[in-house]
């Protein structure tokens, strides 16, 4: 195998997108911010329901590439599913760790400005993590 073939080109980001929690929508929006705006060339998404339903391509990708999971609550469904089907995740983020005890998140459909701000902060964290992973992979391969 050529040495360059080992180089990691993309990081997979898996969002729980939990429908029944505002934090699920925050996980989805933060993930989409990174995928579509902050790191469109360094990332790809893995559709969690498809992944669980048996999407072989997504499972293989997650097995062979670094993954960041973004969960809305302590149940960590995205992390657990990724580790069950593809192996250890590189980084696991729980939205609730970014919400302080004085802040109440309540919107599942249209996030308010405070909820959008939290999603933005999480997107920054994901984005920095993507940079770290790609840099590490580059220095490993240089």
């Amino acid at each position, binding site marked *: 195998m050529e040495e360059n073939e080992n180089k990691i080109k993309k990081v997979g980001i898996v969002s729980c*997108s939990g*429908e*029944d929690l505002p934090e699920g929508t925050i996980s989805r929006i933060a993930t989409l911010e990174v*995928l579509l705006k902050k790191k469109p060339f360094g990332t790809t998404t893995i*559709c969690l*329901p498809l992944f669980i*339903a048996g*999407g072989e391509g997504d499972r293989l990708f997650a097995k062979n590439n670094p993954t960041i999971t973004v969960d809305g609550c302590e*149940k960590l*469904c995205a992390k657990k599913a990724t580790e069950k089907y593809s192996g250890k995740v590189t980084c696991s983020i729980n939205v609730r760790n970014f919400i302080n005890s004085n802040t109440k998140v309540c919107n599942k459909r249209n996030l308010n400005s405070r909820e959008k701000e939290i999603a933005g902060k999480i997107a920054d964290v994901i984005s920095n993590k993507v940079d770290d992973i790609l840099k590490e992979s580059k220095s490993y391969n240089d």
Partner: protein
Amino acid sequence: MDKKKVIVIPCSGIGKPIGTVSRETTYEIVEKLRKEKCQTVCLALLTSGDKETIEKLNKNYCITIDGCAKHCAKKNVEACNKIPDKSYMILKFAAANPDKKPEGIIDIGNGGSDLVDTVASHIVKDIDELTKD
């Protein structure tokens, strides 16, 4: 005995605008149009085998709203040994309403919102039929 509710489960597919349409349609139904009859559950939680969520699913009616023909929501519900009472696919509605086109994944725009209204108004008729007794 409590009256059976309708559990509405979208695929929420993250890679396509139609995934967002499935999610928004669900919220339009459970938060607005049929608040008293419907609720949603986290699909990821269901598929991770959460007992309480599976029990809720089995005690109530269930409908799935998928974005595309991969039918991930429907398949994941079936994997929990529940056959959805009704299943819908956004792509079918989009094909029948070419003037209602979702724009982006984060913001589906006016076309996407119109499509949400069309799909939701179709589905609530079936919900009323399911829960008429």
